[in-house]
């Protein structure tokens, strides 16, 4: 603390800059960020380092174990696993981020309306949220996927529209407490309208806690996609995703005799989810130092 009237620096760090500084000092978060960066880079660079077309059948070379020609071997129709793992990452990550974006948009809108206007509006939105939370997501998506048809877009859409309740509740809680802050009252007594108060005073203060929660939502979406694809209702072949690559392990001979087919996507899911989790933890600690556990 500086002495009244005599601070150390004339420019202070914005809360965002402070959070970033704390994040950088968080070893696990930094490790997560680096790991995730590598995964992301590899999938982005897939056309450069993939060497094979992910969908190209090559029956003479089917079911080969790793070799120089095929780093990670080939699957039962001779497609290159290395290339499919890279391209599959694109799909899995895209699904994760796109679905989380959809649920975030829905969650922020419903949550802030609910928390800001309270009363009947809040009651209706929150009861609706409760109902959606009780849905067995996987079962409903399985059913809905049949009607929508299997495609990347429908998987993203379905995961997105069933994953928002958590975000809604978080945002509602934040908004409920923020709207009672005196700076909101101050702004209102200046004559600011609801729009100005929500945009300038409420939402900027929601972003920080939201960010951490959204990263966990990305994970949720990646895992859900993997689960759906594993069950055969996710991403349709020949497009690879980590989930539908795992699906091949449902047959016993692949599971027992072709570990090179299912281990790479499994490891990639593990690494990605783990790194995003670390980033999320780091963000949470950076944003709210009181949470820090050590």
């Amino acid at each position, binding site marked *: *603390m*500086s002495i*009244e*009237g005599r*601070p150390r620096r*004339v*420019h*202070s*760090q*914005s*809360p965002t800059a*402070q959070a970033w500084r704390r994040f950088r000092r968080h070893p696990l978060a930094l490790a997560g960020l680096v790991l995730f960066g590598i995964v992301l880079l590899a999938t982005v660079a897939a056309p450069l380092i993939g060497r094979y077309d992910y969908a190209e059948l090559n029956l003479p070379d089917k079911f080969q174990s790793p070799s120089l020609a095929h780093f990670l071997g080939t699957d039962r129709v001779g497609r290159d696993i290395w290339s499919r793992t890279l391209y599959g990452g694109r799909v899995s990550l895209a699904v994760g981020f796109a679905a989380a974006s959809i649920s975030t948009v829905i969650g922020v809108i419903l949550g802030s309306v609910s928390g800001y206007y309270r*009363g*009947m509006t809040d*009651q209706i939105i929150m009861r609706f949220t409760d109902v959606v939370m009780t849905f067995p997501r996987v079962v409903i998506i399985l059913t809905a996927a049949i009607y929508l048809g299997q495609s990347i877009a429908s998987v993203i859409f379905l995961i997105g529209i069933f994953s928002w309740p958590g975000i809604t509740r978080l945002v509602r809680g934040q908004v409920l407490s923020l709207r009672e*802050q*005196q*700076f909101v*009252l*101050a*702004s*209102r*007594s*200046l*004559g*600011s309208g609801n729009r*100005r108060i929500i945009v*300038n*005073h409420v939402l*900027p*203060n929601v972003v920080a806690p939201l960010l951490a929660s959204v990263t966990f939502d990305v994970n949720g979406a990646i895992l859900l996609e993997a689960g759906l694809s594993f069950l055969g209702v996710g991403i349709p072949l020949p497009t690879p995703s980590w989930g539908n690559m795992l699906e091949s392990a449902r047959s016993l001979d692949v599971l027992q005799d072709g570990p090179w087919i299912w281990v790479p996507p499994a490891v990639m899911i593990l690494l990605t989810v783990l790194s995003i989790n670390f980033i999320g933890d780091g963000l949470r600690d950076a944003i709210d130092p009181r949470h820090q556990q050590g």
Partner: protein
Amino acid sequence: MENEQVLLEVKGLRKFFPIRKGFWQRAVGHVRAVDGIDFHVYKGETFGIVGESGCGKTTASRCIVRALQPTAGEIHFRVNDGEMTDVANLSRDELQPLRRHMQMIFQDPFSSLNPRMTLFDIIGEPLLVNGVADRRQRIERVEELLALVGLRPEFLQRFPHAFSGGQRQRIGIARALALNPSLIVADEPVSALDVSVQAQILNLLLELQERLGLTYLFVAHDLSVVKHICDRVAVMYVGRVVETAQTQQLFESPKHPYTEALLSAVPQPDPTLRSQRIILEGEVADPANPPSGCYFHPRCRYAVDLCREQTPELEEVEPGHAVSCHRALELDLAGTLDAPIPQTAHS
């Protein structure tokens, strides 16, 4: 109070909060937070509202700046020495041009500043909302305001977290002054601060009052602060004004038993004075379910049958001194011996 012109007149102000229950959020009752209060504030003076927590003083002050919509009553406010306008019953759009004339200072220096905004954004917001669109102009004005409240103009791009409680309160004051208001409603502006910092902020307020000709409506629970800064005082109890008088009058010869009890609770700095502390029995009445008659009677040691049956009106007992007590004239109540403002030693 050179010209004794009334700047603000509050008549029969009421604010009830519905108590909502159940799925349909039906109102099952009301908290009568402010239950019909009247007072007026002269231009250039500091008018204090005191009372325990929960007596409705904050609610009343928020109604006056229309941060809350009053349930009933009139709030007449004089704009630019002109006609009085009833701001309680204006629509939002009609009110907008008047808002700049009355501004608020808040109690909590932490929650009253948005942590994600720089001082420029915080202090400049009133300007922006009220149509000062030119950024250069706003920067100039904000720098001027910072200097006025005793902060360095270079702090423009800093965030509130870099400041101490007292400095933050100065920032809040600068924001309130941005639009050159004539009335400042200060809701316990120093009660969250250390005593030494309290004095600095109070002195700043007094200095600004002199320089800018401000009128203060000063809400407080700390009587020594009130004594220091207020010209006249209204004492509130459970949503009503029970006594109003010149500060000196009120401290020397209170006419309401509640005021007497409040005064007896003020710590005396002089150890030779034996203070007789009046300990109030029981709890503050529940504003959702107030007692019959005088709201204070269950805790009043002078209460008689009449007090239980009839609600007393606020009546003037001497010029400028109004009390709502059936026995105001017969009781001889104790004030504090050391008079406020320039003090001569009593023994």
